[in-house]
């Protein structure tokens, strides 16, 4: 059961290369989305290893707040080509 955590961390390491290399900002945000997704699964497996239920609250918080932070990053990254607000 423990080596699942190791595999997940290695996967996160691989996805971080995409955050470094990503040509456009959108690839970086996509890679960040995948990383925060993998962390949720990391916590669920960690909680099931220790079989403590309150660690799952943490996974719910990760799902909600990771989503929220990302949404705002994406929303305000928009180039506002339509809005024509080119300072």
């Amino acid at each position: 059961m423990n080596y699942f955590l190791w595999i997940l961390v290695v996967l996160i390491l691989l996805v971080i290369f995409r955050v470094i290399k990503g040509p456009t900002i959108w690839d970086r945000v996509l890679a960040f989305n995948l990383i925060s997704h993998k962390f949720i699964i990391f916590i669920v497996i960690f909680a099931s290893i220790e079989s403590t239920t309150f660690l799952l609250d943490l996974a719910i918080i990760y799902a909600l707040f990771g989503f929220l932070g990302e949404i705002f990053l994406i929303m305000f990254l928009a180039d506002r080509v339509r809005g024509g607000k080119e300072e």
Partner: protein
Amino acid sequence: MTTLIVILWLVCSVFVIFEKKIVRMILWLFLSSIIASIIYLLLGSPDLAMAEATASAFVTIIFVIGFEKFFNLRDMKKYLKDEKEIEKENKFKRYILPAIISIGILVLFINFAIPVEQNDYLKNLILDRFTIDIGGENAVTAIYLGYRVYDTIFEALLLVIAVVAVVHMSNFDITKVNDGKHSELETSGMALFLVRIVAPITIIFGVYLIANGFLSAGGGFQGGLAIACFFVCRFFIYDIYDLPIKKINRLEDFIFIIIVAMAALTIFAGLIQQVPYRFMTLAQEIYLFVMNALIGIKVALGFIILFYRYVAIERN
């Protein structure tokens, strides 16, 4: 396992520091503080992992909204050109001297600062006694609501001052800001529909975190931030300006006064000790729950005001 994730955190912080574009820096900061939250979990503190996860989301939101008002976040080149205008003073004073100083302090700190043996006397004392003295099952909540209530009061006071500062520094008048359904965010219908589904979950989850803060991991702060997250989701659905910011501000100050009164009455005046022994645990649990609820609501109101003031700053 922790060493691998800590190295991951080191990599992300190095990238935060040596990144040129502001947008990527904010993204790396968000990533590094989420990994730091995982490290807190592995170091044995789920409370802090929750607080750090919510902190990373709110800090990112504040940065993105704050900086986006003035720069188009994507091409920062136009705004960083004024760094070149000033003539470059000598490289040594600017870059190499601080490097030497910081490396010097780092080496000194590593060799001499940390005492090698750490005694666990205080830890064992508190872990044995906290259910009797203050009640509840979560040692962290028992500490910051029972043994160290002073610290919580001053921390709540600081939050009130932070909100007052933000309210006064962000000049905001409805007429100049283009009202209506905050037109820049033409989110798609599907996004609005699903955010409407997710939003109630956040507020129910916030109340759950506050309710059993003293039983399992959670507490006033994390619950309050989760409730504030509901209003951040609400920002997508409804207009920005229908929240009575001034009333909420006054309500928050009022709750702060109640917190101070509550702490003064029960802990300092020792009201709980006068309760007959049979009702002692009940009185303690009521006290912990009410304090957690008050702190949660205060933190939630504070961050709602913070968020709505930031969003409403008009862009010049």
